[in-house]
């Protein structure tokens, strides 16, 4: 603050001095501090610089059940931007595996290997509903919210990509203001003809995540 006001004052002095020097043509103005004395003590004007934390970044892990191909662990990353207290947009990228073991046991082996990689991404819009608090013990309260999600994206496995619609809901709990814990349920819906006929597949996912605001 001291340095700041000094710089401001020095600048002020310099600006006020400039025309005086030009007019007087005085090469050596001595004791300049005495010539110009600001009569009023300048107020300390500060532009509000408030730390804004509208972004949220985090990771999650859980289980993804791919229709016909088993339920496997899934993990991913997530970035969200909170546009207002009600709405946010988020992008996520996740990885999992699928297995044709169950079909193979029946003699219908489809995949080159029993387990194949799966990855997905999505962009969703979230809407916060049911704001509240979660109480732990007598003296602890954490703010929480339930949110609804809907978005579009893509799911790829076996070198094929599928346009995917995701819908879901989640619960967000904030132990401290910059940290959030998420429990999210999502359905990744896409169309696939991998079993011969084209059909809509519902793929449920349950994840637990953690994120920080910045």
């Amino acid at each position, binding site marked *: 603050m001291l340095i700041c006001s000094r710089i401001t004052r020095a600048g002020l002095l310099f600006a006020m001095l400039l025309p005086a020097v030009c007019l007087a043509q005085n090469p050596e103005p001595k004791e300049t501090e005495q010539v110009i004395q600001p009569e009023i003590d300048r107020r300390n004007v500060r532009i509000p610089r408030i730390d804004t934390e509208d972004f949220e970044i985090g990771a999650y892990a859980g289980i993804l059940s791919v229709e016909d191909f088993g339920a496997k662990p899934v993990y991913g990353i997530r970035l969200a931007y909170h*546009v207002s207290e009600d709405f946010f947009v988020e992008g996520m990228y996740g990885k999992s595996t699928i297995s044709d073991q169950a079909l193979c046991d029946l003699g219908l082996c489809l995949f080159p290997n029993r387990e194949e990689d799966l990855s997905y991404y999505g*962009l969703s*819009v979230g809407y916060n509903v049911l704001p509240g608090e979660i109480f732990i013990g007598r003296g602890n309260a954490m703010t929480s919210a339930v949110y609804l999600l809907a978005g579009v994206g893509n799911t790829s496995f076996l070198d094929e990509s599928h346009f995917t619609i995701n819908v879901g809901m989640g619960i967000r709990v904030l132990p401290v203001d910059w940290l959030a814990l998420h429990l999210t349920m999502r359905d990744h819906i896409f169309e696939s003809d991998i079993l011969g006929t084209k059909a809509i597949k519902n793929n449920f996912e349950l994840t637990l995540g953690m994120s920080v605001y910045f």
Partner: protein
Amino acid sequence: MPVCAEDVNIEVQIAEPYLELHTGPGRGYPVTQVVERGEWVAIIVRRTDWFKVRTNQGKEGWVSRAAIETTVTEAGAPIGLRDVLFEDYRSRRFEVGFAGGLLEGDSYMMVHAGYRFHENLTGEFTVGQATGDFSSSMLYYASVLSEPFPEWRFSPFFSLGLGRFQNTPKSTLVGAIETESNMANAALGARFYLTRRFVVRGDYRRHVVFVDENRINEYNEVSLGISLFFY
């Protein structure tokens, strides 16, 4: 004045009869504390339109922008916090968005990020993915977008782009080969400033893909999406 950037929280004095402190950053969170007129509070952090404040007694809570708007700073001036307005949209610098649509009848989605370097001109980078029954395509292109009437709320634009086009046929198809080619495109579209940071945007784009010396493929794209802007 970056020299003046301080880590010290800004302190404001309450000008309204009272200020309500919520437990969380939203109107639905309960009010647990009330601070009276004339008291000072420190603003710690902002999340969307909510501000976390700390009172002199060390109580913390969240207040809405509307509630804190009338408070005054040390200099006696109003704090001057306001909503994002159409004026901010007109002076926007960055824009990010996503859109969904159709590329020759196939489901298509894309993300784009742009920088507005002139009132009428924006440079953009787009990544799109189309998923069809027989193949899927990835599109990467840089484009320049020109808006003849940037001051209009509903503003048409046209755009020219250059990039790469990758096509991957389904592995179940026999004799399918992956191709990657150069591409150029042109688009006509419009933006509509919705509210706050939101812009709705629709495009009709025609992609010309230079598959090889003898073959050019043309694809039509229609998309509709939402963008967020930063100024």
